[in-house]
């Protein structure tokens, strides 16, 4: 019995990175805030590089609460869309070359709650989201954000989302 030759690693990486880019590159507000995504296998880390326009309180200075909320919400939506896309790609139901050729259908936020734990410092911020429940119509996602220390969160959030296509 002969096995099919595995795909070269660079081909797989390129396909996955292109799929991730297709999710985020087309959204103007993600680009405006400067949010990037780091991918390790299927795990995503959202990165918000510091920029003076993100400041809310210049006296401290601290990141604007709305920036923190936006960052968490973006991290949650992209994680949710990505986890659905990943599964579809791995199971061969989604043709990666099709991604980005038609308008994106991202999950829609129903509600989002932000818990502000400490003030956001004028430094880069990071966030990782976890899909706690993903049904056909609704999903629940939790997201944590930190700056210098992974164990010292500066904010966390939970949101409910309406899945696209329903």
């Amino acid at each position, binding site marked *: 019995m002969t096995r099919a030759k595995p795909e070269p690693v660079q081909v797989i990486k390129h396909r996955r990175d292109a799929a991730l880019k297709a999710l985020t590159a087309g959204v103007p507000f993600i680009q405006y805030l400067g949010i990037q995504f780091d991918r390790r296998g299927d795990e995503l880390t959202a990165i918000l590089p510091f920029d003076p326009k993100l400041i809310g309180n210049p006296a401290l200075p601290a990141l604007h609460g*709305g920036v923190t909320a936006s960052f968490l919400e973006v991290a949650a939506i992209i994680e949710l869309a990505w986890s659905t896309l990943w599964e579809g790609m791995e199971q061969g139901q989604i043709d990666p070359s099709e991604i980005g050729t038609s308008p994106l259908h991202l999950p829609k936020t129903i509600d989002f709650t932000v818990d502000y734990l400490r003030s956001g410092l004028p430094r880069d911020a990071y966030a990782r989201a976890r899909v706690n429940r993903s049904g056909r119509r609704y999903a629940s996602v939790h997201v944590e954000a930190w700056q210098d220390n992974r164990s010292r969160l500066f904010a966390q959030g939970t949101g409910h989302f309406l899945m696209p296509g329903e």
Partner: protein
Amino acid sequence: MTDIDKIAHAFISALPHAAALGMQITSIGDGVVVMTMPWDARFVGDPATGVLHGGAVSSLLDTASGAAVMCHPAAPVSTATLDLRIDYFRPATPRQTITARAECYHVTRSVAFVRVTATDEDATRPVAAATGAFTLDRPRGLT
């Protein structure tokens, strides 16, 4: 410009992110603030439709809420968001200005509670609403 206009203008320009998103105060006083944010192509969340990103709306709701705390008769010296829960009712109509009305409806010694609603040009159908808890730092000697 009236005094209140000057104060409102100074308040917004002191907050770089609020100024960057083009927010403006329409009215402010006694724990109630009305604030606007114009539609801008850079703040779009869905390029297929031109609908603003929920995060941009969240920024407006948070800013209006913080301003409502600051103008409460308790006269706090500063505030920060503890918690904000946002409900999204419908997509904001593209190319329309968003208006948020925030009300600081209860304060304790150290916490302020706020509710806020956002509408586009159709004021009868809200786009989003939020409730939040904020820290309240009272002036020294008045606690």
